[in-house]
């Protein structure tokens, strides 16, 4: 199962190495990891998307993260009300004829063209990872020359619904 875990950490030399080293040593499978500053100076925020086999493994993961001395707080926000976003840059093969068609494809995704050359377009898209996946899929027919994704970054929404309102069904 895929889980989104966030961690606030002390911004010290080697902290990323400590954490990725631990994940490697304990055989956890990281799908993406994003790191950056937070609202507090000296504190960084990390977002991991991980694939774990069961609850016991998941518990181990959060405990091992918590055990790190530089880690201040660990949350598994997968089942919470949250916002999770990713940015992707996609360079697609294009020409004068195709350009308009591609623009049409990306419009519903609210993606934008940020670079144009004779034989390519570079598109920037932000959104939930599945939206990014969907656009990448669609653009695949034109030929993707280069692709870079930031990995997911996420946090909780300003307001959490009452516990009873959290439903496990979705459309």
């Amino acid at each position, binding site marked *: 199962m895929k889980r989104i875990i966030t961690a606030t950490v002390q911004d010290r030399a*080697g902290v990323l190495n400590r954490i990725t080293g631990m994940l490697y*040593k304990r055989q956890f499978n990281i799908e993406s990891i994003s790191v950056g500053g937070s609202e507090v100076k000296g504190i960084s925020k990390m977002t991991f998307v991980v694939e774990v086999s069961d609850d016991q493994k998941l518990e*181990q993961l959060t*405990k091992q993260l*918590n*055990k*790190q001395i530089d880690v201040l707080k660990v949350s598994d926000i997968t089942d919470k009300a949250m916002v999770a976003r990713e940015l992707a840059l996609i360079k697609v093969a294009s020409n004068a004829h195709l350009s308009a068609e591609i623009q049409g494809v990306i419009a519903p995704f609210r993606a934008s063209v940020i670079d144009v050359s004779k034989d390519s377009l570079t598109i920037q898209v932000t959104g939930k990872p599945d939206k990014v996946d969907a656009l990448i899929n669609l653009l695949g027919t034109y030929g993707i020359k280069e692709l870079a994704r930031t990995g997911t970054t996420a946090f909780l929404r300003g307001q959490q619904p009452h516990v009873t309102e959290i439903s496990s069904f979705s459309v």
Partner: protein
Amino acid sequence: MKVENHAAESANKTITGADLLIETLVEAGVDTLFGYPGGAVLPIYDAMYRSDAPFKHILSRHEQGSVHAAEGYARVTGKAGVVLATSGPGATNLITGITDAMMDSLPLVVFTGQVANQVIGTDAFQESDIMGITTPITKYNYQVKKLSDLPRIVKEAFHIATTGRPGPVVVDIPKNISQELSAEKFETEFHLPGYQPTTKPNPLQIVKLAEALGRAKKPLILAGAGVLFSEASAELKEFVEKYELPITNTLLGLGSFPGTNPLFLGMAGMHGTYAANMGIYESDLLINIGARFDDRLTGNLEHFAPNARVAHIDIDPAEIGKNISTDIPVVADAKEALKELLNSEIDMPEHQAWKEKLQQNKKEYPLWYESPSDLLSPQWLLEQVYQISNGEAIVTTDVGQHQMWAAQFYNFDKPNRWVTSGGLGTMGFGFPAAIGAQLGAPDDLVVSVVGDGGFQMTAHELSIIYERNLPVKVVIVNNNALGMVRQWQESFYDKRYSESVFSTNPDFIKLAESYGVRGIKIDREDDVVSTLKDAFAYNGPVVIDCRVAQETCVYPMIAPGKGIHEMIGVKK
């Protein structure tokens, strides 16, 4: 007036970073430093030479010896073992010992020299990325970037190493930092918001555990080294005796409960007793106090305590549920948890039949051995070591057959007298660990039980016991082979003894004598008692080369992959 002048003078005193380090170590109460000099730590050794620091420096002959000695010291005293080595090869020679300390939760503070900050990352002479190398094998590590950070880092290092679940901390000190001059007093207050070990148990969990005990018909206690680290032996004994609970130990937990107490079933695990292992298998409530369910204890996880509710008291939350799913987790210091349990009203149902069954197993399936026609029986030899030392020695070992025999036949009645490499299983650990143990407990008899293989890995530390006249008794259980490797090849590899039997060994007597240490060889059982008595009474180091029968195997045994109830060799 004079006093004031003196104060003013010392406030302006310009000292080096190395001097500051020595001062901080003295403030931390360090009495013994295990080290080896080299280029990047020259300023520190110079500061030590110039200072009248009240600690001893123990010069090993290889850095691995320093770190194992520090482990032995830590294990016996409960204080942090302190190590100092130079950059590059000095630091990398420590890796085995640091990993060993990490696996067995021993508090160490390890100082390594480093090339100057300006050249870190340029592959400078004797540079190694010791931060990168030691990150996965330490509880925490530091590289000192600014002199002003040094005193705080040293304090933090001791705090982290010795609190919570203990472990090794590395402090890497670039040469420019130890050379830098300063007259300032630096901040030593520390703030570790991400490190606050939970020591007090959650009262609700204690209630759950008490309720579980109130329903248990076949309760069993499994006590590990966590009991030793939290100095909870007295509370454990009181608790166990109050409810007459059968109890077993992990290898590292030996001594946390008196080995001669009738409620003690012997050690559990791969070479544990039948009574202990079957006790775990059949129990309906297993209370683990300060052990981590290591695979050498559990055997095949599917068959481990299949009918038991499992309670697990551990100061490290990450150990709970790691290997064995736990019904009643208690994150706490063992002593605090036991105190709370002692304060709880537990209406324990009668479990006489269970106790009797375990006692019956104990009587029916004792540890056994055979007497060889030639040379010594190693198990009998260990029994003699136990008898002649009145069960009061500090015993250190490496890993392998001799280790298991010592664990089986030496009944530790007191805590912190058993120094062995459990998790990492390090050959070459026992002898230097004995040196550290003897320095930590100068008035105790320290017996280092080692194999002929392991002893050769760190035998050069004979220099230290001669130099310091440390009365360590080295008992080499010499079967001219790597006994446990040989045993596994016999049992699981159709007797293909690949590289496990030595074609040559040194003359250990001459080896000892070449260092100035007394050496004795024993190859007849008739000579054992008198020789050991004489050696143990001798006020100085002795190496005793005991020739034991090579074909002897360690039994009983849970073969790899088998369940805890599928033991072989339970009877003669």
